[in-house]
């Protein structure tokens, strides 16, 4: 999505969904996963009679509330959306003006959409032609429409194409930059947005700054440390700019060198130490490999309020450390909601028992590793202090440095004021009243300056920048294939007409038609992303423009293997006939430091013969993530005390499995889990559903004896990810856990 229009975040807000006239949901189940957020969806139905459309492999609780429901075959969202576009273009339901002014490369999409006739789409997706037409008509004719997704769209080998396809559908209908429209990703955990913005990621620095020497120099300077010292901490400068291993495949970094394992590129060493802080180890696929990797490590450190089940899974006998980490109720700080709004948490109680906060653990280790002064110096710089106060000084450090997503306005003082005044914000528009007038709740980023109001609807050119307006970001150059990438429409009340480039020290005088003073010339940063002087932001506000430019969104990403999204069958597809027609990618060497297989897995055999059943995973209402936290609650655990599998009674009966019987699920990798059968018509006969929150059992073996005394959670069971299949997104390396295959058997 960031590759389409600049940022990869939810564009509108939950409250704004109340403005929608139609809602289409792909691979998300907010009624269960975001129940309170789902209230805003239901309000749209009440207020606007909005059509609620759900496209999902199973009949979820969200689908139960839908006006129209399409039970799609896993991994065929791209054909489904092309099928919709086929009908939209054919009937002229697309917004021509919008596309002309604000989108680049839509012609290529139109060409591809022509192929996806309703009958072809029906064949590939399993959704009937009639229903496809009915859904398309309902959605395209009721604008603004909002498009919702979650992990059901991302966890595929073609996930990064899926997340470009959905924006393309919205761009075609002119649903972007509109109240009640937008691409609204529902994040999973409470601070996925914030932790992602801070880039606990192997390919970026906080604020999505890349890993180039220029970025590192900016951070070294901003952290108050010598760049050469920082570079000296790495193997060498070359490795400083290389993407690291990801959460999805870290185990490969341990196992490399063993027979049959993927090759790695990690500076001549395997991974030997694993340091985990707040990350359930059973949340990634290939748990059998994860176990092997855990067993082979030299050092495992697990810092969590509850036992991280890595400790249960491994047979490693020494050097496994469990540290009691405090919860977020035993510290304070900010958290970014799915809509880019920051919310302040106050400390409820002091850390319980002997637990320490995450940052205290980091500070203590930094002291012992000899870089504590460098580590904490960034908090002293703003006011030239002698000592710091966490988290406030860290919040202000972030605000001082992160320009790319506009965090300048997120000072601790402002965020606390928003917390004190919850009652003064409107639930739909998020506008403040009284003393909060002129600000949106939580100052949704980009919040360009210390007095900016925040931006509740991204890319909205109908409102002035000082009220949160902006165009699409100019991120991909000025010209491509001879076509200007700048927008053909200006932002409301801007003193610069039409599109304009991202603002730099070099072009600011020309774009704004001003002359900088000598003093300003001396102080100004190279461009808006690194201008800590605030001059670029201030001038842009004065002229009513967003510092990041006003460009076209692009339907075509010329740096990706598929320039426009193309359907490719999952690595393990139940439709061997379609694998030939829509094959996956070639194997990709050095994908985040590890060679990753695509075609060689898909072509190894006709997987559908031995493994004819689609395997779908998801959440339950009472548990989240790897389930570590909620299974520690007696009451929540009691709602689903054991692991189970939703199975269609006919499929079950054909395998002699009765409701409540134990059954085996086998994966193509040769792994298996033993779970309780739960008859359900929410899945068809060609697929089963399993929740991914359980751990403690492994391939039929009860490992709960490994819990240290008094720490065993109230519910345990097999981890779904022991049987989710091999397969990773071609760009992001997100695991393909939503379109794999399996075989079922009575236990």
């Amino acid at each position, binding site marked *: 999505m960031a590759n389409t229009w600049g940022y990869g975040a939810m564009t509108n807000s939950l409250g704004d969904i109340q403005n929608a006239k139609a809602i289409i949901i792909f691979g998300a189940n907010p009624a269960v996963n975001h129940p309170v957020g789902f209230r805003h969806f239901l309000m749209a139905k009440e207020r606007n009679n909005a059509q609620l459309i759900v496209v999902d492999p199973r009949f979820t609780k969200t689908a139960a509330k839908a006006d129209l429901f399409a039970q799609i075959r896993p991994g065929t969202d791209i054909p489904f959306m092309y099928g919709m576009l086929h009908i939209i273009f054919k009937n002229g339901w697309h917004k021509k003006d919008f596309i002309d002014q604000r989108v680049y490369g839509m012609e290529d999409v139109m060409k591809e959409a022509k192929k996806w006739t309703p009958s072809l789409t029906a064949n590939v997706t399993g959704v009937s032609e009639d229903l496809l037409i009915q859904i398309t008509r309902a959605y395209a004719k009721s604008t603004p429409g909002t498009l919702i997704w979650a992990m059901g769209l991302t966890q595929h080998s073609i996930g990064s194409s899926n997340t470009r396809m959905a924006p393309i559908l919205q761009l075609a209908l002119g649903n972007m930059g509109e109240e009640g429209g937008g691409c609204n990703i529902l994040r999973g955990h409470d601070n996925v947005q914030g932790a992602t913005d801070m880039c*606990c990621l192997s390919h970026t620095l906080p604020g999505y700054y890349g890993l180039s020497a220029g970025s590192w120099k900016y951070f070294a300077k901003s952290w108050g440390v010598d760049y050469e010292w920082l570079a000296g901490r790495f193997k060498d400068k070359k490795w400083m700019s290389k993407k690291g291993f990801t959460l999805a495949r870290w185990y490969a970094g341990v196992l490399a060198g063993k027979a049959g394992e993927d090759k790695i590129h990690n500076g001549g060493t395997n991974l030997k130490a694993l340091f985990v802080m707040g990350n359930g180890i059973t949340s990634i696929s290939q748990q059998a490999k994860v176990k092997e990797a855990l067993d082979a490590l030299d050092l495992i450190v697990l810092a969590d309020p509850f036992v991280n089940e890595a400790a249960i899974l491994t047979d490693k006998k020494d*050097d496994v450390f469990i540290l009691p980490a405090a919860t977020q109720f035993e510290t304070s700080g900010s958290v970014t909601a799915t809509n880019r709004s920051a919310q302040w948490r106050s400390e409820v109680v002091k850390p319980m028992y002997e637990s320490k906060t995450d940052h205290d653990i980091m500070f203590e280790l*930094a002291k012992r590793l000899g870089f504590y002064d460098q580590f904490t110096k960034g908090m002293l710089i703003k006011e030239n202090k002698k000592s710091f106060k966490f988290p406030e000084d860290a919040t202000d450090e972030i605000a001082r440095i992160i320009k790319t997503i506009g965090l300048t306005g997120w000072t601790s003082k402002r965020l606390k004021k928003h917390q004190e005044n919850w009652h003064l914000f409107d639930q739909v528009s998020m506008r403040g009243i009284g003393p909060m007038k002129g600000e949106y709740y939580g100052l949704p980023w980009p919040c360009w300056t210390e007095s900016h109001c925040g931006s509740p609807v991204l890319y909205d050119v109908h409102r002035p920048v000082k009220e949160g307006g902006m165009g699409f970001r100019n991120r991909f150059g000025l010209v491509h294939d001879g076509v200007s990438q700048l927008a053909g429409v200006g932002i409301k009340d801007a003193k610069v007409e039409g599109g304009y480039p991202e603002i730099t020290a070099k072009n600011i005088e020309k774009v704004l038609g001003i002359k900088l003073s000598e003093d300003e010339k001396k102080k100004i940063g190279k461009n808006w992303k690194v201008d800590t002087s605030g001059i670029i932001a201030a001038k842009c506000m004065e002229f009513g423009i967003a510092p990041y430019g006003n460009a076209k969104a692009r339907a075509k990403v010329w740096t990706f293997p598929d320039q426009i999204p193309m359907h490719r069958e999952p690595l393990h597809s139940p439709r061997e006939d379609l694998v030939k027609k829509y094959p996956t990618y070639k194997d990709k060497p050095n994908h985040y430091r590890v060679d990753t297989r695509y075609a060689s897995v898909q072509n190894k055999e006709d997987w559908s013969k031995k493994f004819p059943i689609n395997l779908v995973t998801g959440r339950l209402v009472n548990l989240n993530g790897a389930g570590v936290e909620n299974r520690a609650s007696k009451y929540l655990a009691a709602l689903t005390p054991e692991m189970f599998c939703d199975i269609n009674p006919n499929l079950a009966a054909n395998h002699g499995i009765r409701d409540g019987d134990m059954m085996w699920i086998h994966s193509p990798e040769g792994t298996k889990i033993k779970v309780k059968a739960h008859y359900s018509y929410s899945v068809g006969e060609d697929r089963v559903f399993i929740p991914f929150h359980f751990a403690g059992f492994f391939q039929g073996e009860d490992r709960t004896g490994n819990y240290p005394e008094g720490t065993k959670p109230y519910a345990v069971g097999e981890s779904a990810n022991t049987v989710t299949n091999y397969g990773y997104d071609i760009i992001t390396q*997100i695991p393909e856990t939503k379109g794999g295959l399996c075989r079922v058997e009575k236990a």
Partner: protein
Amino acid sequence: MSEITQKALTTKVGRRSFLKMAAIAGAFGATGAIAGGNVTRAATDEEVKNPYPGSKLVKTICTACSVGCGIIAEVQNGVWVRQEVATDHPISLGGHCCKGADMIDMVRSKVRVKYPMVKEGGAWKRISWDTALDKIAKKLGDLRKTSGPDSAIFLGSAKMSTEQAYYFRKFAAMFGTNNIDHQARI
């Protein structure tokens, strides 16, 4: 007793466990008689209205999902005693799902990790923070020297605060590796 209630009782409580319960009730009744009935008394109106005198209300945000519902925690003498919905919160407007309604158990659950531990010779052993941190830092430092900083990987969290997540990224940077990631990758 209606037929339905009777059925519910008999299915939930087996005969044997019902007898056990009855035995316990009998024993309790006997103790109560000896104590002369002074063990309990009716709460006063004031106690009903304000069971936690001197408590304070703290505003925070649910840690389950990204909706970001408001929570009002009632704290008395440093103990989180009650949890209330935030009716004035602009996103949740007093709503809570079952996870959010039980956030208090994130803090007071009995199965929390209570002290640092290390596995030695296959058995869990309680250790002090200083010992744990010294040992971990020594091991990390040694590996860094012998195998290079890329021999470690740091998995952070979408459950951290934004400030902590930022510091976690900085920690990996200053350790000297880009082997760092978190749940956004799944």
